[in-house]
């Protein structure tokens, strides 16, 4: 049992660290592709170092992550004299620990059937049967805020602290819509366990992205904000704050911060796929039985990883497609758009679920409702989504608008103008 858990932990941490390294390369290649450049394609196997006669292999730049890692480790790790040393060291450690610990309750596959060296089926999650899985993810993501706050404050640097202020306000603000997006899913499944949430979607064949579109949009946007990806990367926007909360960091400590950021993005992708895109489920490829065979089990892992990869690609594409929000726009989006939308979604899901139970007799509702009923419910959810979206965009049209407001005096908008007058 303990050995099994240790092996799982090794797989998860090893896989995540490797993935984070290669996603950096992927991100740089994506950036190059979007901006019509070539990108890092040189570093491969330096064979000429071994033997003068051999030629270096380029391997499409696959050696770049290793070179980057070695560079980070070998570079001077400088601790400025004006920092609070204990907290300065604690900050990157706490953020990475929290980011990695999140994956203890996030499954990386379905179930491995008994065989080879084990007698019972193995659930592919480090801590199986965590009844409060989603809450653990939430708790650890709120611990990650400490890393950002302590890092910025301990640096004793105004740019770092500005980044910290922005970051903590942003993370706390977007935790609400994030939670509201998840609430709908939890209401529909009646469980906080990610495995059961996936199983529920696999059984009905209706992913929650189709039956709860509003919740999906709210969660998706909030996940971007929580991972501090563009267009929400105000905590460390290079053009204004040098590096944000990790301005003063260098060497391995900076690496910990950067890896933790990538892990946040990967965790967000896992959650998006598992909560709203059916996890390992895909129609006609993976079934919904709880004891799959070997082929099924491997297929499920492949489907899950493919979906997560696509979501991460989307994350990276969005990075180069959208300009960054201004801070007031960011806050307005959280409190005036995302929060009401999340509340509407929550009420709509509650009503639809109750109607489902009421219309169909209770016995049938437990064993699975009819396809027609599901279709009607999904259509109703989409209608709610579109209506709410239109209403919110009419009610608060200035949220993401950079044009000057015609209904206000210029002196109203900018008090500094008034001083000049």
């Amino acid at each position: 049992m303990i050995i099994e858990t240790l092996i799982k932990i090794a797989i998860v941490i090893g896989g995540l660290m490797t993935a984070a390294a290669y996603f950096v390369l992927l991100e740089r290649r994506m950036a190059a592709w979007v901006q019509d450049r070539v990108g890092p394609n040189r570093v491969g196997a330096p064979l000429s170092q071994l033997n003068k006669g051999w030629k270096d292999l380029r391997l499409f730049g696959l050696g770049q992550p290793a070179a980057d890692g070695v560079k980070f480790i070998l570079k001077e790790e400088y601790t400025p004299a004006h920092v609070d040393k204990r907290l300065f060291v604690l900050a990157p450690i706490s953020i990475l620990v929290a980011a990695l610990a999140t994956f203890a309750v996030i499954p990386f596959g379905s179930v491995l059937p008994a065989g080879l060296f084990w007698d019972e089926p193995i659930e592919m999650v480090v801590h199986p049967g965590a009844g409060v899985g989603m809450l653990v993810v939430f708790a650890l993501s709120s611990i990650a805020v400490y890393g950002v706050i302590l890092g910025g404050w301990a640096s004793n640097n105004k740019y770092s602290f500005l980044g910290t202020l922005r970051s903590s306000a942003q993370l706390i603000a977007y935790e609400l819509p994030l939670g509201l997006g998840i609430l709908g899913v939890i209401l529909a499944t009646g469980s906080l366990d990610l495995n059961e949430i996936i199983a529920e979607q696999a059984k009905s064949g209706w992913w929650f992205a189709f039956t709860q579109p509003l919740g999906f949009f709210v969660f998706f946007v909030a996940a971007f904000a929580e991972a501090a990806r563009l267009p929400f990367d105000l905590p460390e926007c290079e053009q204004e704050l040098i590096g944000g909360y990790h301005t003063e960091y260098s060497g391995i400590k900076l690496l910990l911060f950067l890896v933790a950021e990538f892990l946040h993005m990967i965790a967000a992708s896992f959650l998006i796929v598992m909560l709203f895109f059916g996890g390992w489920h895909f129609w006609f490829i993976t079934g919904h039985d709880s004891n799959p065979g070997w082929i099924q089990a491997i297929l499920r892992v492949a489907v899950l990883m493919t979906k997560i990869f696509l979501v991460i690609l989307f994350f990276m594409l969005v990075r180069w497609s959208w300009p960054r929000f201004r801070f007031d726009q960011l806050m307005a989006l959280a409190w005036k758009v995302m929060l009401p939308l999340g509340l509407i979604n929550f009420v709509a899901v509650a009503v639809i679920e109750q109607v489902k139970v009421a219309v169909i007799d209770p016995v049938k509702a437990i064993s699975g409702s009819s396809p027609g009923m599901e279709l009607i419910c999904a259509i109703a959810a989409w209608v709610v989504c579109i209506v709410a979206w239109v209403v919110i965009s009419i009610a608060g049209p200035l949220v993401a608008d950079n044009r000057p407001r015609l209904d206000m005096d210029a002196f109203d908008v900018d008090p500094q103008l008034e001083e000049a007058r």
Partner: protein
Amino acid sequence: MNVTALLLAQTALTLDSPMTWGIGLGAAGLALRLAPQAAWQKLGIIAGLIGIALIGVALPPLGDVLPQVLFWLMATLAVFASGAAVTSRSAVYAAIWFAVSLLGVAGLFLLQGAQFLGVATVVVYAGAIVVTFLFVLMLAQPEGHSPYDRISWAGFAIPIATIGVALLIGTLVSSLPEFGSVGTPNEILHKTHVARLGGELYAKHLVSVEVVGTILLVALVGAIAIVIQGNPRRRTTSEEGASDR
């Protein structure tokens, strides 16, 4: 074995039990830690650690090695961090130690199988409340009060507070057996205990939950009302306009 049951089995404090001496030493350590002299502060830390160790010795063993080690780790972390939170000069450090002690408490909850309680402690206290504290403290005086502010009251407040805490802990420990156990472990350790907790909250205690929610909402609206106080920017424009005329 259940940790609570063993704690409950502890009888009243007597002079020959290590528990009494542990609590006494811990209290003395806290008081010394707050003294202005550096040597006394170090002595305070040592006394506090010995106190914690004595209390740990007084608690009955748990049988299994792993839960025992985890319990000692978490309990020591929680107690030590609480002491550090109380005695830290810097308000920021105090808040961080408080968060650490909450993590220790959450670990103790998890050890008992109360998953929801443990995780909710982290989400609500460490994740939301302490972060907000930290936020405010960092913008305020990071070094705490200046020395003369500290000293003027210390001679009176520290002994009184220490005696009060020692009395409180002593009373709690000596009266623990009377509390008895309320729920059976099966109820708490049930697989869907979160759903059960929700059902209990929203069926039996619906009115209280709603009232608490309303009070919080009112407090929120009040805070916003204090912050806004009309529209100051417009007011200044109109005032200036009036003075111009």
